[in-house]
């Protein structure tokens, strides 16, 4: 059935959790693209036939004659045939675009929280064009921030206290923070400036301890 695969693609998108990416469905995606090409192959000859019949009709009009009954039927049949293929193509295009565009929106939101590092388990779910898009879009965001000289990727939640208690999850080593230099060894529990800690938290190297 025409358009069934396209709707499957969109359904897959709709059933995945909001904000989460599932693996790019290459198989289904290329099948829908193939279906589009198929529609075009049908559409071409139909349009040519319609045009031929239209010409015949015009020639006959000059002679004040109508089309023959069989030609009239053929014109109608070709018209509806072409319409069906055209509409199926449009629908497939909408499905494909919805699939790619909505995934791109999720990728955009990832750009806010992950900066430029994509964890492996997400990266393997993306298509090659999506990986490129993530990189490009990240660079676009970075260039805006550097032009304004302000880092927008920190401070995602309203601040309550300038300092927060964090546990270090991985050996980060000695780093210079904005107000102190600290040895961030694994399992250490420290009080850090929230803005300092945030970048590590978003990379999964630290967790905030809430009492």
């Amino acid at each position: 059935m025409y358009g069934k695969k396209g709707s499957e693609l969109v359904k897959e998108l709709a059933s995945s959790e909001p904000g989460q990416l599932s693996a790019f469905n290459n198989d289904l995606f290329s099948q829908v693209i193939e279906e589009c090409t198929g529609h075009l192959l049908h559409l071409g000859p139909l349009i040519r036939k319609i045009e031929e019949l239209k010409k015949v009709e015009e020639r006959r009009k000059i002679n004040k004659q109508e089309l023959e009954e069989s030609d009239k039927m053929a014109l109608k049949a070709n018209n509806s045939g072409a319409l069906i293929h055209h509409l199926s193509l449009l629908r497939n295009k909408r499905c494909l675009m919805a699939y790619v565009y909505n995934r791109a929106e999720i990728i955009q939101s990832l750009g806010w929280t992950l900066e430029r590092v994509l964890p492996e388990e997400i990266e393997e779910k993306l298509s090659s064009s999506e990986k490129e898009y993530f990189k490009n879009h990240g660079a676009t965001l970075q260039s805006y921030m550097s032009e304004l000289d302000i880092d927008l990727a920190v401070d995602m939640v309203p601040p309550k206290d300038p300092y927060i208690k964090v546990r270090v999850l991985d050996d980060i080593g000695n780093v210079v923070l904005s107000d102190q230099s600290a040895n961030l060894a694994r399992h250490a529990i420290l009080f850090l400036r929230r803005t300092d800690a945030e970048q590590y938290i978003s990379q999964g190297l630290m967790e905030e301890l809430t009492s």
Partner: protein
Amino acid sequence: MESGAGERSSQYSEMDDYESLISTTDAELLKRAWQNEKAAPQILRFEAALVQRSREQIQLMEETVEEYTRNGSDPLTVSLYQMDLDRTLFLLRSYLRTRLQKIEKYMFHIQKTTELWNRLSRPEQKFMGRCIEDMEQHLDQSVLSKLPSSYKSHLKQSSSSEEDDMVPEPQLDTYVICRSNRFLGAFQLDDSGEETVNIEADDLYALPYKSIKPLVETGQIDLV
């Protein structure tokens, strides 16, 4: 800090001095701009002067905090200053962030609507230009280049569509919660003129964004 207060203070003459002072500090103005931007479905005018002043303010505060730490002042005072600084920084960042996210979401719509395009700051316009390039390239690589020639546009479904019918647009008839700080009188909700609402000072209303749009844009009403 009161540099933005000049033109506004005349409107609040009936309020007592203290309240008018509070409501026109840049911190308060920034909070209002941020709230409006957060709640409005559409992108609003960029508060260029306000952002500029806030950034100067932030820099000043950073210097103060540094100086206090160096002089070994009372840690409590320093941490209070730091807290204030953090809050202002958060407001500013979140304000800019919200705008960028709206641009990301509605880039094609803003691109073809001059009125909206003019509301962006220069860096934002540049950002959007690049966003569009990135997105077009991505859509083209993934889908459009593989489709037949008359179906290649990312704005139209096919070349037979007369208007751009594939551009995501903000929903303007969504309801927003709003409050005015003064009496605005009877206000018409739609063109038919049948429904009017009496907008009283400091009352909360849930109205469709579309109908109060001009009030939001002229700053007569605030979104919450």
